[in-house]
């Protein structure tokens, strides 16, 4: 087909006129691909060794790929160590770009350990070994399981919502948090299963005061302190105590597995706090403020939690007096464990700032250490 032009008629847009011949002649030449992405200046030549525990993050995040900058420069999802895209696209929802806000030196190992130690509540707990209890004892166990399940769900909810704030440069932290979220999901249903497996049922929800701690945390470090360093140690001590009086392998396995998970969460909290203190010593007073908030919330919750307190009294004593004494001992154990974990994080002076309700559980005569090389002279609880 040919289009006729008549210049005399005054074509207003001659340059836009159709070509004389629209029939295909030769296919347009596709430029030979040049693969510029093959030549980007990222590090090559690594050959990480596979260790006895497989190929772990510590093995591959080495050299430039293991170099975690103090401030992550990219607003999008550029992986650490990749060559950034030349074009500016959308910025993501990340608001945490400073390493000090999330980092812990043990985070890579904890991620891999979490995966190594994975378990399933459906098949790894020998549920058929559960033994019948007197009704009030079963009800006491079910009350504790109700609250453990509830607490774990809040942890899943709140930590999940923080992931989109943590930038890609700290991918190991995001990896580890995924395991903590996953662990807590398992705790939600594992404790629920225990409550519904042995002729019992769920009890009463918790007062919910402590939930405000994680839910209203405005900084990630605050969230970690409150969840991983205040709540998790309390849960761990309760479960270690229950393990001693458990009458079945099902309960012993359940409590032991959850304790192992909580131990990793606590270790991340310790590592993170240690990192914050080492990088920003001026943050110590801020950390104390967060600790005070968390302690107040937990104490307020427990003060109103008659079901939990009485459930523990029923389970731990043969009468109310011995039960109350055992509950006091449990709290003493928790405070000692808590103070020592803070000392592990190189926060030695919490002893002097404890919430009064907790300070009464510190053994008499304990003194503040006078050098940073000392740990508080609180006997560390030994769990069987």
């Amino acid at each position, binding site marked *: 087909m040919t289009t006729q032009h008549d210049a005399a008629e005054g074509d207003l847009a001659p340059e836009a006129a159709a070509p004389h011949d629209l029939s295909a002649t030769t296919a347009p030449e596709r430029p030979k*691909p040049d*693969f510029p*992405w093959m030549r*980007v200046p*990222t590090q*090559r030549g*690594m*050959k*990480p060794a596979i260790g006895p*525990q*497989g*190929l772990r993050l510590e093995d*591959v995040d080495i050299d430039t*790929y293991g170099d975690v900058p103090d401030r992550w420069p990219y607003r*999008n*999802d550029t*992986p650490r*160590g990749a*060559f950034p895209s030349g074009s500016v*696209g959308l*910025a993501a929802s990340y608001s945490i770009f400073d390493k000090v806000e999330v980092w812990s030196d043990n985070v890579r190992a904890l991620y891999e350990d979490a*995966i*190594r130690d*994975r378990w*399933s509540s*459906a098949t790894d*707990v020998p*549920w*058929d070994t559960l033994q019948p209890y*007197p009704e009030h004892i079963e*009800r006491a166990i079910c*009350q504790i399981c*109700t609250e453990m399940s*509830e607490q774990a*769900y809040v942890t899943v*909810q*709140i930590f*999940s*919502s923080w992931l989109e704030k943590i930038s*890609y440069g700290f*991918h190991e932290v*995001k*990896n580890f948090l*995924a395991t903590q*979220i996953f662990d807590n*999901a398992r705790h939600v*249903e594992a404790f629920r299963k225990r409550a*519904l497996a042995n*002729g019992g*049922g*769920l009890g009463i*929800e918790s*007062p919910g005061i402590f*939930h*405000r701690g994680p839910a209203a945390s405005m900084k990630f470090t605050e969230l970690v302190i409150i969840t991983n360093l205040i709540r998790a140690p309390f849960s761990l001590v309760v479960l270690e105590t229950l393990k001693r009086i458990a009458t079945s392998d099902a309960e012993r396995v359940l409590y032991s597995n959850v304790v192992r998970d909580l131990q990793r969460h606590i270790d991340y909290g310790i590592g993170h706090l240690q990192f914050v203190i080492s990088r920003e010593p001026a943050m110590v007073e801020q950390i104390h403020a967060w600790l005070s908030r968390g302690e107040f919330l937990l104490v307020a919750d427990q003060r109103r939690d*008659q079901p939990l307190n*009485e459930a523990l009294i*029923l389970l731990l004593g*043969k009468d*109310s007096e011995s039960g109350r004494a055992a509950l006091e001992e449990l709290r003493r154990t928790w405070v000692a464990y808590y103070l020592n974990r803070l000392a592990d994080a190189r926060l030695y002076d919490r002893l002097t700032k404890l919430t009064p309700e907790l300070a009464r559980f510190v053994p008499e005569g304990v003194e503040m250490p006078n050098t940073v090389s000392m740990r508080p002279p609180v006997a560390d609880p030994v769990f069987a």
Partner: protein
Amino acid sequence: MAVDKDVLEMLRTETDYTGLGLDWLTPGTDWGVKSEPGRKGLTLDEINKSTYGEVPDYSSNFTARPRGAAMRPEAPRLGIRLQNKSEVWASTIAMLYEEAQARQWSSARDIPWGELTQLPDDLELAMCQLCTFLTQVEFIAGDLPGRFVKEISADHMEAGLFIATQIMDEARHEDVFRKRALANGGGLLQAGPGAVGLLQVTDYTEMTTLLHLVAEGFVQSLFRMGELIANNDAEKKIFRLAAQDESRHVALGDTHMKYLIETQPERKEEIHHYLDRQEGLLGTTQAGLTAGGQSAESLAILLGGGKDKIDAGYQKLLAVRKRQINEYMHRLEVIGLGDRRERMNPDMKQFLDPVRN
């Protein structure tokens, strides 16, 4: 039923337990529930009995109260916004959660890393470029659904629990593709536009539509063809295990959308709107994975067997894309959006197989 009246009376009056209130022993919740492990152990389906298994269509539970537990009227609210079961639920959700728990794997130990072989530069770099893309986008698929968990009522806790498994899966995918890029001398290469745009969603169903139904479905189709891309047993296993995870995510999306459309058919047009938008994006950006850019180039090299065979690789890539789009259409039909066939973006529609009679 609660604790036997006589026992309660004894506990309250005997000297041994004086001073205890013990009101909580009669909380008014279902009592006497006993669950036995089934063939797959003690699963959520096994314990979802009596009131504990009654998932309300509309939840008025604004605290963290576990479904079936007794409430405290004074408990503070926690920002629960997704009250309708239809907004988050799927008929398969408890089963998929347990599947996820049962099928966890370790990138450190379950991949035969020792089987990685020395590859020609072009194949090694192509695999590393593909892994750079995958490691870039996988976190988004965890960060995005994670945003919504705090809005999910504890009455619908299985929905929150499933997302927790997805967050774990995606973290492992980010990790395993990064490991593959760093394990064999290649390294990470060119980051692309990524998938940040997905983070712009504001609604749970919008998230499920874009993430599970479209994006993860496309990735799953690709992973299931991993045999064609992989150069050795280590890579084959990576794709196989990752495909298994993605299958759960896609199944969640499919069954959620099906449930939603059955219970809230008035939302069909809204879902079409999300698909209009996403299909347009898939046709034009690297998010399409097989549609263009360095990820498509790297795939073509891998599929062809070298950069000198990239044209043959592109032919195979078209077959992969055709499969992705036809599997996508199949999912749409299953969930009740078969009319999408007529409305699909032309860039994608051209790959559709004819309707079978």
